């Protein structure tokens, strides 16, 4: 497999605030056409990992390749869905405005937004199932609708690799199903998604492979072989409640097999 077909390759990545490392020696390759979950406890450096990949935080060491080239050269092939809480949802813009922001790169700095662009944004909104909210001000959206708006903004870029920071956090069941459906459609279309995920129950159901992260990569590979109780214990340490959750997840998975 040529390196330009690997959507994301992270080598020897270390990020540190002053002297305390946040993630260190992280290495993994993402297989094309897969849904990949990044799993780990709070403070494990999951968001930092995504941000380091996108050059949003300075790297202490390491190299990131996106489809065989540097982030800068290939960032147009990557869509990003930030955490929903990262923005002020009272901001005076409409839903369609937010989705159109995903097209700013294509539109260019000093050219106007055309009807063609707004139609693309509208189609993305319809894909995530909230086309009827296009004209609303974003503060009128529910949590799930906000998350869908962010997804639409990433979809409209027509990227090949998507990086998503907790798209499932605090959304209603309908939105969760809609997002899972979208992710599977994307996979069918040959796209790849790297998703930070919290709910251990749904991991075996949603993801083809996982990266278990706790400052360093504990294990990574196909969910079937890597998402094991032993690996989860190594990732989450002695946090019992989480371990119980994990055990339950394992039991459910075994039942489904």
């Amino acid at each position, binding site marked *: 497999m040529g390196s330009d077909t690997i959507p994301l390759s992270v080598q020897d990545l270390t990020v540190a605030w*002053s002297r305390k490392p946040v993630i260190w020696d992280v290495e993994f390759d993402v297989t094309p056409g897969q849904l990949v979950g990044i799993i780990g406890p709070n403070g494990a450096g999951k968001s930092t990992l995504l*941000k380091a990949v*996108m*050059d*949003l935080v300075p790297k202490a060491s390491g190299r990131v390749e996106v489809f065989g080239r540097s982030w*800068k050269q290939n*960032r147009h092939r*990557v869509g*990003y869905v*930030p955490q929903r809480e*990262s*923005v*002020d949802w009272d*901001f*005076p*813009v*409409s839903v369609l*405005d*937010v989705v*159109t*922001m995903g097209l*700013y*790169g294509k539109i260019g*700095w*000093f050219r*106007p*937004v*055309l*009807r063609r662009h*707004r139609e693309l944004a509208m189609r993305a909104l319809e894909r995530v199932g909230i086309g*009827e909210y296009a004209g609303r*001000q974003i*503060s009128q959206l*529910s949590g*799930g*609708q906000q998350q869908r708006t962010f997804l639409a*903004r990433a979809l409209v870029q027509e990227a090949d690799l998507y990086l998503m920071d907790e798209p499932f956090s605090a959304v*209603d*069941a*309908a*939105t969760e*199903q809609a997002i899972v459906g979208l992710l599977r459609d994307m996979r069918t279309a040959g796209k790849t998604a790297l998703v930070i995920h919290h709910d251990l129950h749904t991991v075996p159901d949603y993801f083809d492979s996982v990266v278990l992260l706790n400052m360093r990569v504990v294990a990574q590979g196909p969910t079937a072989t890597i998402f094991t109780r032993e690996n989860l214990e190594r990732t989450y340490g002695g946090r019992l409640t989480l371990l119980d959750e994990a055990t339950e997840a394992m039991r459910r998975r075994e039942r489904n097999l």
Partner: protein
Amino acid sequence: MKDRRLQSLRAMAALLLCSFLLCGCGATPIDTRSESPLLRVLLLRDYNTRVVILGATLLGTGAGFVGCFTLLRRRALTGDALSHATLPGVGLAFLLAPVAGLDGKSLPVLLFGAAVSGGLGVMAILTIRALPRLKEDAALGIVLSVFFGAGIAILSIAQQLESGHLAGLESFIYGRTALMTASDARLIAWSGVAATATLFVFYRQFTLLCFDDGFAASRGYPVALLDVLLMTVVMLITIAGLQAVGLVLMIALLVIPPAAARFWTHQLHRMVLISAAIGSLSGLIGSAISGVFADLPSGAVIVLVCAGLFFFSLMFGGARGVFVRALRRRVLRQAIDREHLLRGIYELREQELRERESQPRPAAARLTELHELRTWTVRQLQRQISRCESEGLVWRRADGEIELTERGLIEAERLVHNHRLWELYLMTHADVAASRVDRQADAVEHVLEPALIARLEQLMEQERGRRIIPQSPHAKEVS
């Protein structure tokens, strides 16, 4: 977006035109007559008054425009620290200008000094903020007070060195428009135009920066550079406003107009225009008032007028003002009461209505029956009955019962149908329903797909036959 752009373009063009016009007429003196001071101000008789008012108006416009973005970027207080940080620069420029062979009291020289030390202040904020364990508010507090203190010290040294020549320097602290000359007004105009033009050119980039800087950075936008550009624009406006409003009160013009504009609209391009309008009105009215009452310092008056406009917006703002919100709540409450009344009468008589479907079907209920249905007071109920009566939906019979008119019956049937569909939807699709139930949607059809409604209606028919769900969740209370 295109028409929005056009709108903004027009506003920009108007602003540019204004500033040229104002500079033009500001520069041609008209003979002053012996009129009352009020009239002279109102008619812009005085050359000086004209200059001052026009300058202050332009300043307000520019500050209102720029302030929108700093407020949304949550950098409003950085503007305050910046304006305080200009003071040592003013003092030093005054002291050092003669060394360089310049006039220490010429405005461009003083403002240049102000810009340099303001820039240093912003850099100091960024440096302190980057230190471990110190947050933005600490950085702002330190820079604001230290620079201002240094400025006061330098001014008092200057006072001792060249006593008597200092007149005017203090005006940078509290602002005094009376000293403004035509060339000063022109300076303000050009800074305003430059600041506005920059924001206009980078409008979309600044919007993205303010809304979601993480996303902007991930798309390759130079976020740090855009922030510097935004701060430069703030600096330009602040420097322009030093003389008229003063560095202590400059922050008011940058924060209050956009905050007030937020009560009028949910759309950024409108917010920007409204904010600019509020800013310019404050400048205009404030400087005019301080022109009439010569003892009132212009900066303070401008800020007070601004605050008055803010209060007005807070109360009467069309998007989220106090009154609009109260009105909206009232309308909603009445709509709910109306629905309760119509549905109440209908459901009380539903059995009889159904039994004689083909005959004329009067549906009436006693006041006490209706009162028991819900938690409303008799007065509330009476008022709602009167309202529905004037709408022609019900009428009071001679025996005191409230009867649905023909139109009322149709409306009640529709409401009941709608309500039950929602209830059924909640029950059958409990997992997804919560996010979609929309009480304010006039009809289920506007929210749910036709196929889903057809299925729900089918279900409703079946259940009516089987009586599995109660006809109304409130039926128990009545029986």
